[in-house]
């Protein structure tokens, strides 16, 4: 069977002059022609013959991939990598500069929730307008009307102009319309970033239901790694307009996050650079799971280990390894050190792992500092302040945020037991 989406050598070029601030006015152009007709003619001639110096920018270059029917493909990458441009080309909003795309089936796109919503119109009216803009027929909208309304949960405000809606209600209504489209291919841009967590979950659930039941093909751009991982089998990583890697979601996400945390999840010092003194030296530090696999990120509901390998060169000091966790703002999260034991004083290689329990750290980026010191008398043998950087990702599925929309503040986010009497 032929793939449902085929993308061959697609590239998109922008001329920087098009993107300058403000807009070109006819008046300026005419004034220029009258003021210096010769210069204008010269420039025009240069443009036509192609000698003019143009500032070009390739937002996308050499994009090649195909998608089989029923696959949900995630597209990730840093800002400005060309993710949205790719979607805009696929939807036909903007043409590619080169290449060819073939899509077999009805295509619908969702680059924004509530495209074309008019504040003066009521919820009911906007359902029809928005539905039509998204490519639904009037009959289709009428057939699904009740379903859309009950999914959104705004029955009471159906005949109120949407300008009086809260932003949450607005998003609910808009997403409900979008969720009821029935295309073969659905192109989705970061739309789940809005709305409260519970509704996000509902949307994700709806999307999952849709993909599993009807075998819909979805291209999904998102920064939400949890959503990407729960929805997409395959993933494409874009960087600077090119495909950096493509394949199994877990691998690609892993690569992206480890690129993102630069130094990343492990640090191995070469023999000459090893921090320390003639008593103890640090060899390496890794972030690991129980299976011993090196990680670059973790979920808030999973435990993660900091594995430290060091060498004790001289006995009699009992050096104690300890970790110092900082937030990306530089706040101290906590310190932890190994339990004292006679084994610490053994000369030779040591491998120790500190386990950070699940449901302790809040989501965010953290730096781990590693120190090895003798407690009595106090002597710090080494201290690497940012040995490892890693990310804690919110576990969207089991989150207990309900209607709370933003990141919950705080360095830690333990799940406490609450007793009721």
């Amino acid at each position, binding site marked *: 069977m032929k793939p449902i989406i085929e993308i061959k050598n697609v590239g998109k070029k922008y001329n920087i002059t098009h993107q300058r601030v403000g807009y070109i006015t006819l008046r300026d152009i005419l004034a220029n022609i009258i003021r210096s007709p010769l210069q204008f003619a010269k420039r025009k001639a240069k443009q036509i013959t192609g000698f003019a110096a143009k500032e070009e920018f390739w937002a996308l270059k050499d994009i090649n991939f195909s998608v089989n029917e029923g696959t949900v493909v995630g597209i990730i990458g840093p800002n400005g990598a060309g993710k949205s441009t790719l979607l805009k080309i696929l939807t036909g909003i903007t043409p590619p500069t080169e290449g060819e*795309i073939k899509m077999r*089936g009805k295509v619908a796109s969702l680059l924004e929730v509530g*495209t074309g919503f008019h504040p003066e*119109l009521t919820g009911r009216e906007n359902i029809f307008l928005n539905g039509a803009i998204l490519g639904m027929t009037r009959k289709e909208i009428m057939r699904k009307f009740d379903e859309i309304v009950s999914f959104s949960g705004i029955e009471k405000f159906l005949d109120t102009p949407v300008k009086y809606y809260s932003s949450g209600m607005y998003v609910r209504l808009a997403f409900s319309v979008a969720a009821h489209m029935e295309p073969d291919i659905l192109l989705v841009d970061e739309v789940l970033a809005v709305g409260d967590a519970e509704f996000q979950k509902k949307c994700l659930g709806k999307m999952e239901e849709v993909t599993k039941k009807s075998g819909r093909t979805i291209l999904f751009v998102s920064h939400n790694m949890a959503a990407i991982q729960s929805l997409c089998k395959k993933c494409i990583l874009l960087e600077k307009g090119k495909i950096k890697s493509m394949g199994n979601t877990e691998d690609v996400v892993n690569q992206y996050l480890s690129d993102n945390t630069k130094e990343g999840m492990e640090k191995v010092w070469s023999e000459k650079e090893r921090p320390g003194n003639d008593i103890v030296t640090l060899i390496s530090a890794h972030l690991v799971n129980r299976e011993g696999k090196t990680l670059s990120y973790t979920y808030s509901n999973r435990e993660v280990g900091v594995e430290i390998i060091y060498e004790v060169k001289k006995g009699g000091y009992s050096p104690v390894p300890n970790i110092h966790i900082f937030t990306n703002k530089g706040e101290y999260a906590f310190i932890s050190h190994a339990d004292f034991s006679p084994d610490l004083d053994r000369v030779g290689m040591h491998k120790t792992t500190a386990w950070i329990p699940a449901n302790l750290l809040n989501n965010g980026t953290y730096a781990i500092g590693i120190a090895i010191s003798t407690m009595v008398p106090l002597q710090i043998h080494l201290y690497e302040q940012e040995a490892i950087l890693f990310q804690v990702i919110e576990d969207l599925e089991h989150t207990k945020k309900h209607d709370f929309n933003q990141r919950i503040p705080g360095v830690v986010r333990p799940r406490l037991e609450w007793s009721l009497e």
Partner: protein
Amino acid sequence: MGNKTLTIIRPKKTFSLRDFKELWDYKELLYFFVWRDFKVRYKQTIVGIGWAIFQPFMTMVVFSLFFGKLLKIPSDGIPYPIFVYTGLLFWQFFSSALSETSGTLIANQAIITKVYFPRLILPLSSVATKLVDFAIAAIILAGMMVYYGYTPHLTGFFLIPVLLVITFMASVGGGLFLAAINVKYRDVRFVLPYFIQILLFLTPVIYPASIAGKYSWLLAFNPMMGVIQTARAGLLGATPINWTLVSISFATTAVLLVIGVIYFKKVERYFADIV
């Protein structure tokens, strides 16, 4: 799932019959845009739909007072109010459609950059919205005809749809051109009102074409002159119907429409990059 539509996206799209088919596929969106513009416009005004009647009616009263009563502009032997109203009816359809269309892409840029649909829908819906206004304002003309005791000839009556088609083509053709240019050069919309005002005086709305004497043939290249002249001839029997004039008007607007559509299609795909 057997007959799946195949979409092919390439850098350059050639103009083809498929474009018209696509336009047809999106006819419901056209309907919804007209419906939206109409709903929104009349939702905020107290007088609501009455505005569509009030506006041309007041213009007619003012014009009749100044041009008819005070300046005594000739009107081919027809009472000046009904003479000028017939002209105004078509003129306002044309001029308001033209100015509305020219700004439609800018006004809808939020949608243009987020969803694909044939961009032609937008200017078409603007003109169609004005057509609804025309229909409402035409009720007054019918009332005036009864008041002044005019019965149109049968030919005249059947000519109205033809004249509407010409006006429609003229405003779509000109509007497409202006809309496309307006995306690139945003000052066009500031110039346009003056341009339309001047055009009003070049069109026999407030005066009969006969006033221009032997140069009146020059006016024939203005398609709206043919439309208004013929409307007066057909509905009020001001002059005999000039079939040559109707043909010239039709031909000029057809050319205008073709130029407008070609230019619009040429730049259409890049709107999302520059709005």
